[in-house]
């Protein structure tokens, strides 16, 4: 048995380990994600500690660094799917010794935007124009919103693909982008400018992505793999609520959805499988 030396650690690691205790550490992309996971797994917070690593790249690098230093190895990371392929998602989920998990849907928000939860919350939210009769009508409306976001998501995908060669930071179309004011043509022109590519080349690439996205827009489950829930959340607020679309309002609506999903629908199997089967069960071994 070798002597374990306890000495000074980097400040961030000290703060994490101070809070961690004997729990499993799960690195998430941001503070918004922490809020959702802590609400969903409130009863497991004595066994699990969620920490925001600030972006998927940081989740990956921080996870690797911590695994190198750890003797127990009970450290995991969960990141959004973004534009990753089905193969990449499956590889991370099926690998028995995996420590990094990729969500099957585009982002964590896509697990909040279950049609029933959205309908249930909008029903009682201040709104003059909300007249969707039930959750199946809500589902159809959400798919329509997904279709409206198709070109913008295709443009972001093209920008994402270019990221292996170029720094794309700041080039993406952000949530809250007004898809009513900006036509398909506007998005293509702006992408061309942002990437400094010829218009025709950009249009061709966007069309290719639009075709793939369109093929997934038949059901919520597949559409939510392609359409960013963060964008969709903003569009829902624009379309169905009368309140000003400030950040606190969006965050408040997000919190309502988080609770409703847990209490009235139940968590999606993707999420339960990662936390309960792969992380918490591993702790008992």
């Amino acid at each position, binding site marked *: *048995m*070798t*002597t*374990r*030396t*306890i*000495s*000074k*650690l*980097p*400040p961030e690691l*000290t*703060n994490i*380990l*101070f*809070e*961690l*205790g*004997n729990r499993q*550490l799960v690195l998430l992309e941001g503070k918004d994600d922490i809020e959702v996971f802590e609400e969903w797994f409130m009863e497991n917070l004595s066994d699990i500690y969620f920490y925001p690593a600030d972006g998927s790249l940081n989740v990956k690098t921080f996870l690797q660094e911590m695994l190198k*230093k*750890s*003797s*127990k190895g*009970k*450290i995991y990371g969960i990141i959004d799917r973004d534009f990753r392929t089905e193969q990449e998602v499956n590889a991370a989920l099926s690998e028995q010794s995996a420590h990094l998990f990729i969500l099957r849907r585009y982002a964590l928000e896509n697990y909040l935007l279950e049609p029933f939860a959205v309908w249930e919350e909008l029903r009682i939210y201040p709104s003059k124009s909300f007249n969707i009769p039930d959750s199946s009508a809500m589902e159809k409306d959400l798919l329509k919103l997904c279709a409206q976001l198709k070109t913008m998501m295709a443009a972001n995908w093209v920008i994402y693909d270019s990221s292996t060669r170029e720094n794309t930071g700041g080039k993406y179309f952000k949530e809250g982008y007004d898809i009513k004011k900006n036509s398909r043509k506007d998005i293509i022109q702006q992408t061309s400018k942002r990437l400094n590519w010829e218009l025709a080349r950009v249009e061709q690439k966007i069309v290719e992505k639009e075709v793939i996205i369109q093929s997934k827009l038949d059901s919520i489950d597949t559409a939510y793999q392609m359409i960013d829930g963060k964008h969709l959340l903003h569009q829902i607020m624009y379309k169905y609520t009368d309140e000003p679309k400030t950040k606190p309002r969006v965050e408040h609506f997000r919190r309502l959805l988080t609770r409703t999903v847990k209490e009235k629908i139940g968590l999606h199997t993707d999420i339960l499988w990662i936390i309960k089967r792969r992380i918490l069960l591993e702790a008992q071994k």
Partner: protein
Amino acid sequence: MQIKILSLTVKNGGALKDVKIDFTDNEQSQSVIVLGGANGSGKTTVLELIFALLELFKISDIRNMRLMQTEYAEIELLIDRKTTHVFFDNPAVLTEAISQGNKYGIRLNRVNNDWRTQTSEMSQQMYDSIMLNEGKPINLSSKQTNTIPSILYFPHHRELLPVTGEQIHREEIKYQWCYRYQNLSSFSGSLESHLIWLDYAEPEIFQSVIDFLNQLDFEGKTFHIHRKTLSVIVKTRDGSTHAFDKLSSGEQNILILLLELYRRLIPGSIVLLDEIENSLHPAFQHRLAQNLLQLQRQIPFQLILTTHQPAFVKIFGENGTRILTEF
């Protein structure tokens, strides 16, 4: 004299199976060490072992309960810029005694089942200094000139107990190499009894202590002696009064720590403090930490504390924080 802890090595001591805790930063001793970790990770054991190992300089009681439950413990110290080691070796199996070089310590020789003491030049000097001072009164006004510091240990249970007239006795503060705060009505270190005694016998010192207490700002509360009943009374901002032991548990925690330090702290000492946050609201956590740092600027001492409150990591700094839980 100044004494600082550089490291602690433990084998099979409670939750600490085989660890070395390094208390230095870039090979320099640190003035505040914050020990963090899950419940049961050995934070209190570390304080108990430090206290027990340093007590060995007096060789007063080698049957110290904490040490007897430990197979091996060794502390590395810096005494006036000289490094020295104190060890306790209670080998589980029959082995030949191994010379520990220039270290001071006690080892159980299982061949004859007797305790062997290994002395060093430093241990002899320490023993002589301790014996020269032990039991002599500490003069509050001149304690800064004392030649040897103390080890002051505050276990997690700290509260004031009610004192009656018969329990008031002469409360001179006497030098102790290792002092442990106790929560017993028979404990001669009772703060209330001390204050009453000072009011009666040492009015000048009493006034300085009262001034110190009143500047701590306990939400406008002030402290007074009621001579008829031989008790300390606390006046609140609205003019009402209550007994000394009726202060809230958080107020008692702060009062005990700061008043005990005020009357016992000699420059160069080590203060061991278990669960600093005992009953303290975040505002009081900051107040206590700031008071300790201010005191440290006036009278240098090494502070080693345990806590579960992240606020103390922020206040005292990550550099001095050691996490005992293995991850």
